[in-house]
C-alpha cells in the first residue's frame, strides 16, 4: 500500500515547490500561478458536482461571479474592507444562492438539469448586465484589496504579490484537503451512491434530494471562494464573470483534467491556462500570426485529449503509476 503514501509525498513535494515560487520567479509568473490556483479551486468545486455527485452543472459561474460582486459591492471605495468579514459574507451569499437555485434545479435531472442550471446563471448574468445595480456592463472596480488585520496585527498583506499568492496556495491546499476528507466520509459515500444509482439509494432509505442539495451548496460556496479571490486579484468584477462562457471554461477544465479525481480538474485548470499563454506567444510564420489564432490550437488540443485520454490528463499519470506499482493488487 505504498502507492497512497507515495502520492501524499509527491503532493507535499509539489506543494513545497509551489510555495518556493515567489522567491525564485518573476512577478509575472507569480501572478499567473495565483490565477491558475484560483481557477484550480473553482474547478475542484465543480468536480464535486460533476465528478462525484454526477450533477452536470452548466451554471457554475453564477456562484463564482456573485461572490466577486459581493466583495466589490460591500468594500468601501477608497479604503480596505476586512478580509475576515467580506470572505464569509461572499461565500455565504454564494452558498445561499446555490441553496435557492439548487432547491429548484435538483428536481430535474439529465439534460434538463444542464439546461436549467445554465438558465439560472444566464438570468443572473443579464441582471448584472442590463441593470445599473452594479455598474452594468462596465462592472465595478475593487480599488483596495481587503486587509487581513486582526486587532492591529497584520499577518499578511494581500496587496503584496507574493503574499496573495501564498494565501491562495494555502486556500487551494485547504480546499483540496477539505474535499478529500468529505469524500471519505459517510456523506461522500452517499453522493457516490447517488451518482451510480440514485433510484436504489432512495429505496435503501436515503433522502437523496437533501444530500444532493447539501453537495450543491458546498460546491457553490467553494466556487464563491474562487470568485472572491479572482475579484481580489483582478481588481474588478464584470458580468462576464457570471456568464456561460466561464461556466463552459471551468467545465472544460474539469473534463480535460479528469473528472472525479479532484486533483485532475486542478491540473486541467493549470494546463489550460499555461497552454493558452504558450499558444498566444506562437510566432508569426509565413505571414500568418499563429499566436493571434491560439484558440484554433486550443480547440484541437481539447479534441485530442477528449479522443485519446478518456480519463483526462490525470489519466496519463494514473495509467503509468498503475503499470509501475499496482501489479500486486490483482
Amino acid at each position, binding site marked *: 500500500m505504498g502507492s497512497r503514501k507515495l502520492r501524499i509525498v509527491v503532493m507535499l513535494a509539489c506543494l513545497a515547490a509551489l510555495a518556493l515560487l515567489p522567491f525564485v520567479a518573476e512577478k509575472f509568473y507569480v501572478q499567473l500561478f495565483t490565477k491558475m490556483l484560483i481557477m484550480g479551486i473553482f474547478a475542484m468545486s465543480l468536480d464535486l458536482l460533476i465528478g462525484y455527485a454526477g450533477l452536470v452543472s452548466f451554471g457554475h459561474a453564477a456562484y463564482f461571479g456573485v461572490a466577486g460582486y459581493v466583495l466589490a459591492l460591500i468594500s468601501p471605495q477608497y479604503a480596505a474592507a476586512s478580509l475576515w468579514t467580506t470572505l464569509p459574507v461572499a461565500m455565504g451569499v454564494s452558498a445561499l444562492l446555490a441553496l435557492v437555485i439548487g432547491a429548484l434545479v435538483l428536481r430535474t435531472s439529465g439534460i434538463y438539469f444542464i439546461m436549467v442550471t445554465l438558465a439560472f446563471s444566464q438570468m443572473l448574468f443579464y441582471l448584472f448586465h442590463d441593470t445599473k445595480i452594479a455598474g452594468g456592463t462596465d462592472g465595478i472596480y475593487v480599488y483596495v484589496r481587503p486587509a487581513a488585520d486582526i486587532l492591529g496585527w497584520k499577518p499578511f498583506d494581500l496587496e503584496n504579490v507574493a503574499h496573495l499568492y501564498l494565501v491562495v496556495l494555502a486556500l487551494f491546499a485547504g480546499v483540496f484537503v477539505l474535499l478529500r*476528507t*468529505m469524500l*471519505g*466520509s*459517510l*456523506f*461522500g*459515500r*452517499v453522493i457516490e*451512491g447517488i451518482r*451510480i*444509482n440514485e*433510484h*436504489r*439509494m*432512495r*429505496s*435503501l*432509505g*436515503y*433522502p*437523496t434530494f*437533501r*444530500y444532493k442539495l*447539501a453537495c450543491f451548496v458546498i460546491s457553490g460556496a467553494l466556487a464563491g471562494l474562487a470568485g472572491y479571490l479572482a475579484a481580489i486579484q483582478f481588481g474588478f468584477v464584470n458580468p462576464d464573470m457570471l456568464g456561460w462562457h466561464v461556466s463552459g471554461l471551468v467545465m472544460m477544465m474539469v473534463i480535460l483534467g479528469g473528472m472525479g479525481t479532484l486533483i485532475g480538474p486542478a491540473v486541467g485548470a493549470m494546463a489550460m491556462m499555461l497552454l493558452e499563454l504558450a499558444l498566444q506567444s506562437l510566432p508569426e510564420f509565413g505571414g500568418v500570426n499563429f499566436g493571434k489564432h491560439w484558440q484554433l490550437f486550443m480547440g484541437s488540443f481539447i479534441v485530442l485529449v477528449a479522443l485519446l485520454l478518456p480519463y483526462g490528463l490525470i489519466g496519463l499519470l494514473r495509467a503509468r503509476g498503475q503499470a509501475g506499482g499496482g501489479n500486486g493488487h490483482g
Partner: protein
Amino acid sequence: MAEPAAGEVLLRARGVARHFGGLAAVNDVSIECRMGEVQAVIGPNGAGKTTLINLLSGDLPLSSGRIELRGRDITGLASHQISRLGLGRSYQKTNVFLSLTAFENCRLAAQSRLASSMRFFRPALRYRAPAEAAERALAEVGLEARAGAPLAALSHGERRQVEIAMTLATDPKVLLLDEPLAGMGAEESARIVELLQKLVRDHAILLVEHDMDAVFTVANVLTVMVNGSVLESGPPKQIRASRAVQEAYLGTDDGGQG
C-alpha cells in the same frame, strides 16, 4: 418498536390501485403480510405483481387505496421514508451499484440505517456497524468469498444474491422480494429457498416468484393475480386445487410451469 409477535399483520394494503392512462395495472388489490409468514404472489406475466410491489414500497404512487406498515398509515410516503420504517425490497431487474464491490454495495445499504449520513469529516471507515452488517448479509446469502469482487465481475446469479443481501443489510421487518430466484442456478436457488425458510421466522415476506416448486415449498399463503386483480387467495392446498386458478394461470395442460 417492540418485536412483532408471530402472526401479527405487519403490512396491510386495502383496495390499492394503479392506473397507467386507461390501463388498470393493479386494480383494487387487498393483501396482508404477517410476521412469520411468506405471502407469495403469483400470476402470469403482466398480471401486475411487480407494480403491486412498487406500490407497496413507495416506488410508484397509488391511484387509490391505503397501505399500513406495522399499523401506521404509509400511503403517499416516499420510498426512502418507507424503507426507514422497516420495509426492504429487492428488484426483479437487478438494481445494484455496478462499479462497487459486493461488500461495498451491502455496506452502503447498511449505512442507511445510521441516524444520518450528513457526516462530513469523520472517516467513513471508522463506522464499524455498516461493515459488520454487510458482512453478515453477504454470509447469509453465501457470498462472503466474493465480497471484494466488483459487481461488474460477478455472474448474473451472484448479482442476484447481492441484490438480496443488500435488502437484508437494511435490517427490514417486511421483505418484498421480486423474483429473487430469476436467473439463479439450481444450487444458488436452493440456498436462497433455505434462506427464505430461515428468514421467515422473524420477518414478514412477500414473495413474487415464477419458480413454482420454490413457491409451494416456502409459501404459507398464495395470492393469484390476473390482469391486475386478485383472482384467489388462500393456503397452498386451496390454490393448487382451485379450478379458476388452473384455468387462468397454471394452464389447462396440467404441467404448466415446466
